């Protein structure tokens, strides 16, 4: 079935010897490197994000070991600073965002009835540039004297506040790698954001109006808009930092009259929309899971969608609540306190809609639902502690304490990571054809749920008892010992749950129960095609006439309003398209050809960045690679000529 995509190569990729892509080597490594298939790119995103999830997790465990007892000498302060900086940066930019991108890639075209995204090669470019930035960032570890235990990583926190981020206070190259790595990552996200907006607005199947789209697609659309407007702001902040650090400019140099607070304003003007960039995809995922496992449509679809849109707009007006203690004055503090209270309203609307979806449903507590319900519960707790921060006097007490660490982990781990795990359990069968083991799934969930709460619930207490965040050790008589020990034990329970997940994942890939196309009796279009989906997704582009399109193919209401199955409804046609047999002269499905150009273009960026730090001679080489990549890209045919 893959033979519909016999690739047409450009002269340049032709020159790459020994590289011939055809249907026969669908599984070869070159076919992954040159792939423009949204499903494969989704898998690449997911696998990379998971690798970084484990890396960021190990960093967190090291921090927790250090904090397990007072006056510990396990890590020196310098290594501690570098590890918490890398932990935060990794989890936000290299785990939650790309894991969300994995779901966008895997699901959006399938959910709207499309054969691929609008710009398949731009999509591949996004992935490779993300990976380049991620590897570049982690390469910073090796810039120090690592054999003697001196790591070289950045050490100014994931927010990299000025003036701490200037060369004077953070010498060494760690922060250079951080700012240039994030810059690459930002460009990759921008490209992805453009791509998904165009895909969602322009590539919907006939009848798939905006208000028939699954909520996950809506959340992807809102997230993508946030990305394209938030990323340029952090790009500018990072450019300003780059000029300050590498070319002696004065943006954040107080001596020359510069204002270091400018960095905080720009960082959080990006950073607060970013929080919703991290959480909205998980909201979309659980909005798919909850209806399926309660066998009811999502309660208040329009409310969920419009509150998502409201969050998207309001997220631009709350950034100062990260800066209430910076002395902006009572007027600014009160105004942003109020907007912060207000943004809790649309979020609360969603939570009530999810609960109402479960209410009265015939609920099946399968692993995806466990994680989804966990998301709702944990995110609610995180949201409540967030509202406390909008009370300015209360925030003055909590600022920079472990209470904030507890809050942000309840939102980003309890909200986003739980939701993403739910998504993995839910859609694993769609892309592998096998179910993840049910029993291990429950063990995974409960270990993670208990471990998570054991780690972060005590941080509320240690924070209220006055424990500041980012300290590498503390005095044993502060009354923080017990709470820190609990957190450390919890962190290892989370690690254990991730190991259970990995075991489940690899075992189920080979030995999992075969799922068939629609194992959950689900509602959206991706379940109407075989598992794993064929390369062309839909043999015929479906015509949509309602929300939950696939559900309505399977069920209808009889005269009494009872829901009855439609005879032969939802049968999955997994025969390959007939016109494939007609070969190249028929009107077969034309898929975009594989291309190396996105990788070549993306590879120029780390070369430029390395050149900026070490040797300017590399900079033109990097630009040349980008130009070759883009020119090759534009001039090669996108699909096989008819």
């Amino acid at each position, binding site marked *: 079935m893959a033979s519909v995509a016999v690739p047409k190569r450009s002269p340049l990729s032709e020159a790459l010897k020994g590289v011939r892509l055809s249907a026969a080597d669908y599984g070869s490594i070159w076919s992954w490197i040159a792939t423009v298939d949204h499903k494969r790119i989704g898998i690449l995103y997911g696998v990379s994000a998971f690798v970084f999830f484990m890396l960021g997790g190990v960093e967190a465990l090291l921090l927790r070991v250090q904090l397990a007892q007072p006056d510990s000498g396990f890590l020196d302060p310098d290594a501690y600073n570098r590890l918490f900086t890398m932990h935060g940066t990794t989890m936000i930019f290299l785990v939650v965002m790309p894991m969300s991108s994995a779901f966008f890639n895997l699901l959006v075209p399938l959910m709207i009835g499309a*054969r*691929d995204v*609008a*710009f*398949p090669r731009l999509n591949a470019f996004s992935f490779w540039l993300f990976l380049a930035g991620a590897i570049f960032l982690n390469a910073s570890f090796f810039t120090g004297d690592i054999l003697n235990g001196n790591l070289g990583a950045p050490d100014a926190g994931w927010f990299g506040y000025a003036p701490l981020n200037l060369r004077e206070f953070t010498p060494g190259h760690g922060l250079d790698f951080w700012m240039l790595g994030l810059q690459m990552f930002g460009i990759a996200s*921008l490209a992805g*954001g*453009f*791509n998904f*907006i*165009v895909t969602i*607005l*322009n*590539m*919907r199947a006939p009848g*798939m109006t905006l208000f028939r789209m699954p909520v996950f697609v809506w959340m992807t659309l809102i997230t993508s808009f946030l990305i*394209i*407007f938030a*990323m*340029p*702001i952090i*790009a*500018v*902040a990072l*450019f*300003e930092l780059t*000029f300050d650090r590498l*070319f*002696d*400019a*004065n*943006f954040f140099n107080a001596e*020359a*009259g*510069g*204002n270091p607070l*400018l960095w905080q304003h*720009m960082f959080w003007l990006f950073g607060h929309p970013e929080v919703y960039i991290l959480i909205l995809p998980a909201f979309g995922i659980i909005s798919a899971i909850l209806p399926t496992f309660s066998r009811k449509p999502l309660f208040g679809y329009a409310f969920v969608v419009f509150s998502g849109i409201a969050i998207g707009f309001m997220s631009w007006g709350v950034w100062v609540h990260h800066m209430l203690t910076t002395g902006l004055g009572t007027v600014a503090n009160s105004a942003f306190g109020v907007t912060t209270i207000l943004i809790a309203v649309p979020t609360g609307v969603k939570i009530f809609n999810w609960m109402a979806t479960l209410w009265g449903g015939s609920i099946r507590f399968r692993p995806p639902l466990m994680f989804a319900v966990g998301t709702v519960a944990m995110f609610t707790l995180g949201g409540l502690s967030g509202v406390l921060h909008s009370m300015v006097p209360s925030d003055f007490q909590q600022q920079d304490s472990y209470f904030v660490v507890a809050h942000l982990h309840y939102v980003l781990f309890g909200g986003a990571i739980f939701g993403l795990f739910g998504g993995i359990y839910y859609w694993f069968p769609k892309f592998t054809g096998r179910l993840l083991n049910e029993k291990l799934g429950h063990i995974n969930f409960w270990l993670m749920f208990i471990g998570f709460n054991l780690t972060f619930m005590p941080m509320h207490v240690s924070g209220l008892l006055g424990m500041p965040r980012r300290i590498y050790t503390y005095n044993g008589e502060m009354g923080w010992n017990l709470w820190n020990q609990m957190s450390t034990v919890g962190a290892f329970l989370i690690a254990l749950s991730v190991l259970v997940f990995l075991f489940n994942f690899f075992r189920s890939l080979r030995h999992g129960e075969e799922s068939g196309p629609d194992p959950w009796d689900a509602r959206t279009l991706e379940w109407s095609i075989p598992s794993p989906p064929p390369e062309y997704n839909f043999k015929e*582009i479906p015509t949509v006439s309602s929300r939950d399109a696939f559900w309505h193919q399977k069920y209808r209401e009889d005269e009494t309003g009872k829901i009855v199955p439609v005879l032969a409804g939802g049968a999955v046609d997994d025969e390959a398209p007939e016109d494939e047999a007609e070969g190249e002269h028929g009107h077969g499905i*034309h*898929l*975009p050809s594989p291309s190396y150009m996105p990788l070549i273009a993306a590879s120029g960026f780390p070369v430029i960045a390395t050149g900026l730090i070490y040797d300017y001679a590399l900079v033109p080489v990097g630009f040349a690679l980008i130009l070759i990549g883009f*020119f090759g890209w*534009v001039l090669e*045919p*996108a*699909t096989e000529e008819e």
Partner: protein
Amino acid sequence: MAHATAADHLQTSTGLDNRKLLMWLFLASDCLFFGSFIAAYLLYRGRSVVGPYPADLFDIPFTSVSAFILLMSSVTMVLALAAIQRGNVRNMRIWLFTTAILGTLFIAGQVFEFTEFNHEGLSLSTNLFGTTFFVLTGFHGAHVTVGVLILLSLFVVSMRGGIQQKDSLAIELAGLYWHFVDIVWIVIFTLVYLIQP
């Protein structure tokens, strides 16, 4: 230039071409990019603790001429698009090339201005004015340079017969980008050069 993509076989849901929508989204995003740099410039205006200050350096007549050149390049860009939409490949080439030349003249003016300022003692690290001025106008210059590169590439492709009336979208997209960069210059020229504290 514009090759068929898989999407071309289908009509888009909005009726707007994918590539055109992409360009509009990119430009919307780029507004935030320039907006942030302009905000930094305005924030630091008049706050330099040492000279040289803007009033010591700016040569308004000179920059007005180069701004005028860039504005005129938008006119020639419109003429290029109008030509190819009528199917007149020859005129399109002439106007494309003229636009690229005008863009290059603008860049040359900027290089000259940067060198002059530098001779008079302003560098990236001299003061806040040097930092914000060079970075803001430098990024604008980089945008114009990319634009010139796009125009010249289109010109070369068209010399090899690659752009016909049906491919006018490629010229339209380049035009959208070019006009945007032009508008940004109007904003920068007004805020940085004309309105001084």
